[in-house]
């Protein structure tokens, strides 16, 4: 199989409007009309227009409605995975299409190609800039379970959808969508992005951050506000439950697949039997074809599970980890603040202390005038205290900002989570109802075909006595 993956039909099906078609129409209109039509387009066909493979059930659209769709001015899609082969490696790039009316952007439309690494970089930068905002998780870097190759079509499509969701969540976020890094990610050419990536805090600075973070973790927080403790408890339980659900859904998928495999053996057995019979040929073949049709319905059910429910649940397993990280970072800021506060208190105490202390002794050791030494020390301490006070002020602001940001985002996240989970399960339930309805129709039509045969038979001459006895003798289900 060649390494090049062509546009999969899922998002270039002629029946659905592709983004390409829409964009052509859009460019013909005035700029003002553009805005109007865009909004309308968004409210009416949100699901199908920009996420062609997403479920378009009313349930999923409700979530979008909760956003301020009238003010939505940036639309992002991720599609068209392509394989690139170089001497060193093979990797996939995705097309990222942006349409926007925001003034920060020079143009109103961008098309770039990005690979997973780039998304990963973006996430890092966003978390760095906004440590206490909840950034939607990326699909996992590596997939351990099973024999999933990185270039398997289903895997690529699942990843693409997750990346699409990732960018859209950012685009919908009032603060994150204004990030400079986000803008560059969406609009820069490949070489521009590479050079931009090279800027930013150097290796040592980043190392320092990490060390401080670890130290803060060790230090711990003394006076965490109650509301954040509540959130922490929630997140811990949520993480457990969503992980369990993920496992349950995977298990159901496995059982369903195995059931399908066995069911596929049924129809051939009935067909084989019909070869030996005369009178029974029609009913046997009827049963065989009915089972066959139920098999294809089961296949669709299996696909729904693996394309819809399981990725949705898995996303929130990753979300739980993100939440834990966000809480940790918030705690770290507070720990930092508390630590600095302690240091300040210590220095103040030192400042007020008697001159009969070590400083005096040390000073005289170095041949200085004790009085002078004390004064020097006091001056030094004053400077340090001033510096510390400034730092603490800044940290205080940072803490307040971080806490508020987090609180705000927490509400947002919960709303999104409810919407997403509800949509996923609604879709599953709908699909299951649909599955049973279709199978019901299959068997009812089989019964109908047999009933018409039966009425033909009863008109034939059959000894009544034998018929009666047949009724007596036919094994009844007790």
């Amino acid at each position, binding site marked *: 199989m060649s390494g090049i993956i062509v546009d999969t039909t899922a998002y270039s099906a002629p029946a659905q409007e592709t983004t390409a078609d829409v964009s052509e129409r859009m460019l013909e209109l005035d700029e003002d009309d553009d805005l109007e039509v865009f909004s309308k387009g968004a409210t009416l066909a949100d699901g199908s227009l920009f996420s062609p493979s997403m479920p378009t059930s009313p349930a999923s659209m409700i979530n979008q409605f909760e956003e301020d769709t009238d003010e939505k001015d940036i639309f992002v899609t991720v599609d068209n995975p392509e394989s690139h082969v170089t001497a060193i490696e093979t990797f996939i790039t995705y097309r990222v299409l942006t349409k926007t009316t925001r003034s920060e952007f020079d143009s109103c439309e961008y098309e770039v190609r990005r690979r997973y690494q780039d998304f990963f970089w973006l996430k890092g930068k966003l978390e760095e800039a906004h440590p206490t905002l909840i950034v939607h998780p990326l699909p996992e870097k590596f997939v351990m379970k099973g024999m999933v190759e990185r270039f398997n079509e289903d895997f690529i499509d699942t990843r693409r959808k997750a990346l699409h969701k990732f960018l859209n969540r950012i685009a919908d976020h009032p603060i994150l969508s204004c990030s400079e890094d986000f803008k560059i990610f969406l609009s820069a050419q490949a070489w521009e992005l590479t050079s931009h990536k090279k800027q930013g805090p150097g290796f040592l600075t980043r190392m320092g951050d990490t060390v401080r973070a670890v130290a803060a973790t060790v230090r711990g927080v003394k006076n965490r506000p109650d509301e954040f403790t509540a959130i922490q408890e929630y997140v811990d339980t949520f993480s457990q*439950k969503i992980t369990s659900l993920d496992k349950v859904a995977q298990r159901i998928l496995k059982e369903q697949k195995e059931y399908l495999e066995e069911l596929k053996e049924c129809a051939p057995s009935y067909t*084989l039997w019909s070869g030996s019979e005369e009178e029974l040929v029609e009913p046997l073949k009827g049963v065989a074809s009915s089972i066959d049709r139920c098999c294809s319905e089961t296949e669709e059910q299996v696909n729904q599970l693996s394309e819809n429910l399981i990725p949705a649940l898995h996303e929130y397993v990753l979300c739980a980890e993100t939440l834990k990280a966000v809480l940790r970072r918030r705690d770290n800021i507070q720990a930092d603040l508390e630590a600095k506060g302690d240091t300040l208190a210590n220095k103040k105490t030192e400042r007020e202390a008697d001159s009969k202390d070590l400083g005096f002794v040390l000073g005289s050791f170095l041949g200085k005038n004790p009085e002078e030494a004390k004064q020097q020390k006091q001056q030094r301490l004053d400077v340090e205290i001033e510096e510390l006070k400034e730092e603490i002020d800044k940290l205080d602001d940072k803490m307040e900002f971080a806490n508020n940001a987090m609180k705000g985002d927490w509400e947002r996240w919960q709303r999104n989570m*409810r919407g997403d989970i509800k949509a996923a399960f609604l879709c599953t*339930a709908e699909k299951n109802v649909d599955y049973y309805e279709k199978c019901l129709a299959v068997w009812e039509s089989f019964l109908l075909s047999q009933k018409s045969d039966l009425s033909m038979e009863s008109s034939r001459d059959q000894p009544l006595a034998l018929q009666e006895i047949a009724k007596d003798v036919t*094994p009844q289900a007790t």
Partner: protein
Amino acid sequence: MEIDCVLSAHACELNMADSSSEEIAVIGNTDLTAADSENNRNNTMAEAGTTLLRRMEISVAEAEKRTGKNAVNMQETYTVYLIETRPTETATEGQNPTPDALWRRYSEFELLRNFLLVTYSFIVVPPLPEKRAEFVWHKLSADNMDPDFVERRRAGLENFLLRVASHPVLANDKIFYNFLTEENGWKELVFETGFQAKADSRLKALNATFRVKNPDKRFTELKHYSDELQSVTSQLLRVRARVADRLYGVYKVHGNYGRVFSEWSAIERDMGDGLQSAGHHMDAYAASVDDILEEEEHYADQLKEYLFYAEALRAVCRKHELLQYELEADAQDLTSKKQQREELATGTIRTFSLKGMTSKLFGQETPEQREAKLKVLEEQIDEGENLVKQKNAECGEFVQNAWVDMERFKEQKDRDLKEALISYAVMQISVCKKGIQVWTNAKECFSKM
């Protein structure tokens, strides 16, 4: 044991391919007129109308565990089944007398069936439910003492009795009647008939199958059909068991949703109620599979009955082959004796024989010796001709009677299996309806989240 024979409308012809003698050529030259055959058919119906089942209600009402000492004086546990009978007239008259009842174990049913098999070798004898649980979908029900297995066996035994009681020939059997009515001494009655001596050895039957030259083509076809039926139904039963196993897994795992939803709902404010109630529906869904599979067992039992019927069908075909083979052997014997007679009479030796050689070497026999030999041969030939005539008639009778029962069996099988397939579809419809209900309810709950 007298066999009540029901004559079919067709005359049978048996041709011995390798004999030129006319005595053994054609049998059964009974040319029935159209009126006669109509009359025969009516008689069949009349007899069917008065089968045992019409006169008597039969049921296997209960099963009970017993312990006792067996033949080698060891303690064993076994199950006995209560057979209840009641004359139908009294029931229809509005009275409800207590039924007559007796207890029988499975081995006694087996004895009854073996008796019927030997005595009515031209009948496709209804099969018993399986001795050991096979084609099980869940490890649990492989145990013979399992209450579900016992219950299904009870139903199977009742079905067996009803089938026999409604059979135009078998229903009139005295031993069968005594089985239903005489608790004590029945076994002795059976053994007294000496049926065991009449049973054909397996080896004899196998030998006949390989060496018979001219079996009735219809029986040969039926034998092939019985093989096919057996293989197809056992394959179907195996597949069905595996599917049932998997279906069980799918439904049961959904029960986990209930548990996790419930635990999760505790920390959710807005979603909590929806999750909790959806969880209950998932529990209901998981639990519903037990009933579903229970019903499917009935379908499996219907298939199993015909799996075992295939064996009974094959037994009749084999019996035909055996009779035919014996007839051919006797005819061959007769032919060779006649040849010997001819040789002795004309003095020509056509075939090589030790006798011929020795007489050549040691001189011919005296005329007196030849006379004596001829006389013996004539007697033997007379006996042989009678034997062949008898066997011929026996064979012909067997073919006629067996064919009638084959036709009856074929109609019964087509009817029963068609109904089984229809009831399978009905079952599937019920499963689908339950599924629609559960998931619609769950959908309601999810939409309220």
